[in-house]
């Protein structure tokens, strides 16, 4: 077991080595930066609004983060997996004296680490944004009245909600040679439920979108959106880090990862 863990650590280390100058790494840097910047500009424009508060700032950043999260995951994981499809690299890796399952889980863990890195940056940049907003508009006093736990929980549960999506996108990325295919599938999965809501609203069949707020809940690609609906629907100080749906999605992610590793272990690399 110790040997297997060492091998896994080796694979994770080499996966991180490969990240230099990749689209995946750039997206991981730009996604939190863009999200916080966008939300901060919006909050700055709302500085004189009476409802302005640190919680509103966090919710705002969280909403923007949740909206872009599926697209960040789809693109980052697909491009990260695409590295191995170029120049027969998968065949080279599989012909090294390392178990196939170690490759599968090593790269999966590295993918999850990328998403975790984005989350960590999101938190740090949120603090930085609040600090800068306080400097520009001292009366806001955002840092002083900030609920740190709420910040961690709100952003944390949004990112934890994405784990099943990461695993599915990772498997699609490993399975499909052409990067367009996993990106297209992932994007369709992320957009379709929202498009259904939008079309129903435009055609007048649905007067209140909250009626169908459960719709994103049953799709791993839109599940992070469901938190946004929840936050928008009322006071949010009672946020759970792990709502029951997240636990179910986590379980699904584990099952999918095990099934994926079994398929990967027995796959023919043509």
């Amino acid at each position, binding site marked *: 077991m110790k040997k297997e863990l060492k091998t896994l650590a080796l694979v994770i280390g080499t996966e991180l080595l490969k990240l*230099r100058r990749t689209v995946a790494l750039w997206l991981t840097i730009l996604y939190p930066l863009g999200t916080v910047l966008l939300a901060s500009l919006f909050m700055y424009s709302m500085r004189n609004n009476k409802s302005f508060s640190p919680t509103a700032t966090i919710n705002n950043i969280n909403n923007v983060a949740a909206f872009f999260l599926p697209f960040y995951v789809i693109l980052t994981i697909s491009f990260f997996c695409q590295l191995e499809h170029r120049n027969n690299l998968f065949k080279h890796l599989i012909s090294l004296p390392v178990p196939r399952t170690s490759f599968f889980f090593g790269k999966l863990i590295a993918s999850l680490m990328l998403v975790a890195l984005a989350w960590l940056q999101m938190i740090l940049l949120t603090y930085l944004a609040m600090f800068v907003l306080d400097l520009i508009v001292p009366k806001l006093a955002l840092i002083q009245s900030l609920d740190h736990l709420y910040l961690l929980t709100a952003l944390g549960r949004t990112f934890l909600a994405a784990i099943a999506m990461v695993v599915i996108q990772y498997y699609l990325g490993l399975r499909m040679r052409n990067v367009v295919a996993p990106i297209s599938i992932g994007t369709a999965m992320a957009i379709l439920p929202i498009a259904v809501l939008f079309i129903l609203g435009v055609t007048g069949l649905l007067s209140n979108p909250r009626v169908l707020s459960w719709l994103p809940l049953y799709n791993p690609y839109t599940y992070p959106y469901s938190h946004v609906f929840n936050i928008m629907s009322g006071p949010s100080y009672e946020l759970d880090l792990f709502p029951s749906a997240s636990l179910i999605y986590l379980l699904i992610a584990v099952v999918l990862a095990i099934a994926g590793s079994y398929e990967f272990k027995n796959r023919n690399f043509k």
Partner: protein
Amino acid sequence: MSLPDRENIVQESPVIQTTDLTFAYTKPEVLHHINLSVPKGSIFGFLGPNGAGKSTTIKALLGLLKVKPGMINLFGKELNNNRLDILQRTGATIEIPSIYEHLSARRNLEITQRLRRLPESRIGEVLDIVGLSGDDIKLVRQFSTGMKQRLGLALALLGKPELLLLDEPINGLDPEGIREIRNLLVKLNHEEGCSIFLSSHILDEVEKICTHVAVIDAGKIIYQGETSGIRQKNSPGNVLLMETSDNPGCMKLFPDRLAGKTESSISFHYQSREEISLIIRKTIEAGIEIYSARPESQRLEESFFQLLSGGGVS
């Protein structure tokens, strides 16, 4: 660099042995009951036209394909049950050099070095061997095709393999690059005792370095054995090519030996070196001047095409 005498290196115990190796992506089968036996210490050329099954065979030997039915033994061990141990002793290039183009040569080697748990000093050694020491921090996307090919070979050599499986290792190389790789492979084989299994379309090169060859066509092995054997078995006999001052007159001297004629030359069959001497002596005695006389044995290329056209041995 002259070819070393490898007779003492080649040991008859097979480093690769396949039994009824059969594989199909979909029907029909790409590999059809392949029985390969690659002697330890040999440089084994694997020849065949495009789509014959060369790359598929190499992938099967590396465990990239799940072969059913059939058995693969490398180093005397069954592949499926000893995959990691076997791969530890094997280096390979498959189809094209497997390299991350957004990274430097050194970083590419570092990834494989770490996964193989090798000392970092090994990176410098293989860079020296393939002549890329000065370009180690350059991004691979700036490399020429030949440099990429050499980096691919460096990756294969990193683990000091006892067996090298090389799929088209000299594709895309210029003549100088081909010569360097040829010398390197011979050196590895001669000095390190590394067995080499290589597929190639460049028959001249295979002929120059390989001690053994196998020919595969439509997924079936149609010849395997020593390189000299393929020529002997398919040769209609050795031929003496001559240019003389009177070619028609010379033809009349040996009408039953005539093998062919062109505008400027004629050729005669011969069985032994003494017969070459006899032909030359009689020509001179007949008062005909000889401008050139060159014994020619059948080349591998000719034997290869004869085999593919169905005129060969099994």
